[in-house]
């Protein structure tokens, strides 16, 4: 019974004398490898050279602020639920009087951590978020010698107020 049309018939034929001499085959192989010797390597010398990635590449996350610079996240936990790698943890807190310029919603994330070693950069967190608070950016989480340094807290995730990160392209991915 033929299951696929990719099957190959195994042949146990004896090698001919020319094949048994090995030499033509060896020289052929050496010719192939020496041609590769003079070819340009495919290596990208990271971190001096960064490989070009797509504009909608899913890299390190950013916690967005709104136009007035208030954090969008309301610590609803939907991203943590959606995360297949269980990389997200957070602690919620209630917004106090006088903190309206810091947090957009009445409840906010006092602590928000993503473990970059667990994260698989699938982007499900950003799909789950009802407040458009979390997005993935084309930036790479930097290499480090210590595993504990890969747990990114709010200090690394929340977008700096003076250096806003444009995520309109990522937004388009979800609306299209």
């Amino acid at each position, binding site marked *: 019974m033929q299951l696929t049309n990719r099957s190959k018939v195994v042949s146990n034929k004896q090698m001919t004398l020319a094949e048994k001499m090995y030499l033509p085959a*060896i020289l052929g*192989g*050496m010719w192939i490898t020496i041609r*590769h010797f003079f070819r340009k390597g*495919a290596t990208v*010398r990271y971190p001096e050279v960064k490989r070009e990635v797509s504009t909608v590449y899913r890299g390190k996350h950013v916690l967005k602020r709104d136009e007035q610079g208030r954090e969008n996240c309301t610590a609803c936990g939907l991203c943590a639920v959606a995360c297949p790698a269980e990389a997200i943890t957070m602690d919620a807190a209630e917004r106090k009087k006088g903190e309206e310029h810091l947090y957009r919603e009445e409840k906010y994330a006092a602590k928000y951590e993503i473990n970059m070693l667990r994260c698989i950069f699938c982007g499900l967190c950003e799909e789950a978020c009802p407040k458009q608070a979390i997005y993935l950016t084309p930036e790479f989480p930097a290499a480090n010698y210590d595993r504990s340094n890969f747990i990114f807290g709010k200090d690394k995730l929340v977008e700096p107020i003076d250096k806003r990160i444009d995520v309109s392209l990522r937004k388009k991915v979800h609306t299209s």
Partner: protein
Amino acid sequence: MDLALLLDKTILILILFGVTLFIAMYSTYAERKVAAFLQDRIGPDRAGPFGILQPLADGVKMFMKEEIIPNTADKWLFIIGPGIAMCTALMTSAVIPWGKNITIGGHEIVLQVADINIGILYVFGVVSLGVYGIMIGGWASNNKFSLLGAIRASSQMISYELAMGMALIAILMSTGSLSIRDIVENQHGWHWNVLYQPLSCLIFIVCAFAECNRTPFDLPECESELVGGYHTEYSSMKLGFYLFAEYTNMFISSAIISSLYFGGYNFPGMDAFSGNTLAIIGTAVFFAKIFFFIFFFMWIRWTLPRFRYDQLMRLGWQVLIPLAIFNILATGTWMTFKGQLGF
């Protein structure tokens, strides 16, 4: 023996020792670079410019690693093994002529540690001792993988030594001497042995690969079947010694192949020079040839997969030895009749 000679030889031995170790060290770097280039990569480039300090980093790493001697191992043999491998690898270089004589202020310096008239036999003797390093190391580890590797190494080396010796006999017949210096002198200009004895040269090179345990004959240490072969249990600088011995062997075999078949320090157009100039250019040419063969060893390694064990044995006993004997016969016939046929 006068003092000057003693001094000459001591200095030469020290230089040779240094050069051999240096080349073996940088062969590890070259190997990684060549492998990378053949595979469209760029290889180590972090330690120093172009990664040229990589061997030092590797060496430091080797020394810093924890030294482990298995409980069940035969402790003394376990320690001696790498030493023997390294010693025998270094000893062979004594009879290789590195260049023509250099004269400094009327004092003639011979660029060869010992021109013994049985140079070739000496090389063979030392090379066959080399198998002890591997065998003892593998056996003393008290590990099945190591033992298998050691058994393979010894049977492979013994099998290929035969064909190697037979291939050489043709050269000895045409040269009429066992001294390597004589053999090299015989290949003046472009009269290299490879042009007269291509078959013998081919057999010799194949056997040299087998003797050095290089791919496609690296069965004693094939990672995919035997973990690390005879050096599975070794760590730290003992492992370093084994790896180092392999590269030293590669360097020495390249030197021997170049001097036996590719004219040693002879090169076409050498008659235009004389004296010290000739000697220096000759030595440079010799080293160029050696480096080419080291590259050749690596080129083959990153081109060919490993032989199967039965293929290895069949190739050695059923192909190379008969071919070598045939070559001896043909050379003998030619030498007997060439005078009579009026050539």
